[in-house]
């Protein structure tokens, strides 16, 4: 062969070997379990995942988004192993569509919804029946998750309706794709007030809680967790058990979640 052909052949071989070497690590023995978790779980779950990795040496990958977005992705075939929803409705939807392994379902956490404002805001507002939220907004918008789909938005709308404030503010909502996006709108000062979870407010020092919604004004904020039907990963089941074990409790409680008893039946 002449010199050019030899060089080309050599380069081609090197490229193929390189490709093989690059792809090699992409096929590990067992892939890391994929968790689809509600956006509000970010701080707590990141900590638990790091803990799990330290203790068991195994990796876990988490994708955070609004629960409606996640269940929709699972419906379209996303390879999630575990789904943690911020409300029972979306988990029920998943079970109806045959996406969720009902035997592994249980209620993991409780949370509260609160009214938040930027840290330097000067007003206070008592969240009680008949309270005048519309004038507190002073022409600005109330940041919430999408009130038809995002759990935090749905809880918020239910609470406002119960307290008689919904009609005054329903045209003044800035609907965000998930509760953390709503939090960011308040933190940036774009929205004077917002409805987020108590745990979100605790995680962000640039917002402060102006009022807490009474628990009887909305359906209980319960986070169910389950394996997906399509999951075959043994590490996923192990991680699910870890989430329900006392080892995971401190991380959740530090953020302000109420951890429900392990193995509590789904309501």
């Amino acid at each position, binding site marked *: 062969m002449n010199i050019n052909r030899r060089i080309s052949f050599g380069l081609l071989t090197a490229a193929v070997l390189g490709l093989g070497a690059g792809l090699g690590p992409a096929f590990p023995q067992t892939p890391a379990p994929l968790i689809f978790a509600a956006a509000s779980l970010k701080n707590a779950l990141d900590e638990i995942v790091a803990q799990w990795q330290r203790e068991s040496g195994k990796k876990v990958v988490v994708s955070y988004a609004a629960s409606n977005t996640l269940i929709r992705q699972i419906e379209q075939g996303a390879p999630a192993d575990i789904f943690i929803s911020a409300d029972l409705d979306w988990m029920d939807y998943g079970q109806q569509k045959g996406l969720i392994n009902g035997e592994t379902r249980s209620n993991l956490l409780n949370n509260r919804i609160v009214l938040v404002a930027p840290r330097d805001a000067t007003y206070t507002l008592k969240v009680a029946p008949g309270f005048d939220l519309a004038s507190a907004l002073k022409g600005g*918008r109330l940041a919430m998750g*999408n009130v038809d789909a995002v759990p935090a938005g749905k809880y918020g709308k239910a609470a406002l309706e119960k307290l008689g404030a919904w009609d005054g503010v329903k045209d003044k909502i800035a*609907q965000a794709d998930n509760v953390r996006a709503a939090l960011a709108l308040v933190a*940036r000062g774009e929205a004077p007030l917002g409805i987020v979870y108590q745990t979100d407010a605790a995680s962000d020092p640039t917002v402060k809680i102006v009022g807490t919604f009474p628990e009887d004004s909305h359906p209980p904020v319960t986070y169910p967790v389950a394996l997906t039907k399509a999951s075959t990963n043994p590490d996923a089941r192990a991680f699910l058990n870890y989430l329900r074990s006392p080892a995971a409790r401190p991380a959740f409680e530090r953020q302000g979640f109420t951890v429900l008893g392990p193995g509590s039946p789904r309501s």
Partner: protein
Amino acid sequence: MDGLLNLSPEEWTAVRLSVRVATVAMLTSLPIGIAVAYVLARCKFPGKTFVDGIVLLPLILPPVVTGYLLLLTFGRRGLVGSFLAEHFGIVFSFRWTGAALACGVMGFPLMVRAIRLSIEAVDRRLEEAAGTLGANPLWVFIFITFPLIAPGIIAGMILCFAKAMGEFGATITFVSNIPGETQTLPSAIYTFTQVPGGEAGALRLTLVSIAISMGALVVSEVMARWVGRKMWTE
């Protein structure tokens, strides 16, 4: 299939808002675009490459980055935004004007490029001939240069309009997704795709988007040819 094009009121709102935002973005970018294109095509000055770069930046940056920069500058607490809000009461957050600003900024480089290319293609001798016949520079621009670059300006306008109609990343980062104010067609389609069962709505709006874009292309072709024909038959 027969119910496919029955848009709900919210969907119609998104369509109307998109067209309005894109039109405003295009029209407000136009004078600035022509001026900037002219300066970049004809003038030499220190820092020209830098200005060229700044103008082209929205084309290369990820749209979300452009949206974030707009937020930092024109948001309620931004450098320019807080000044505008305090002294003039002008707020872009959650308003269609913010969406128009985002779309205008994203479409601006495309408009400038198209106009600049057509300015550079003008035969200077025609302008010089008019000058030797006694015309002042402004007259030369209006009656000689402008008709010659008209097809380029139309192309730039259509490109800017199309980009504005399709703008998503910068808009949603800067002014979020408020139905009636900032929920343009792409944002509305995105919202449909976030909710299980939103396929029908997403598909309807996708078809409308395609129809509007194709319509804009056809109009631009027709106009460009009409202008071209008028010029060469005079």
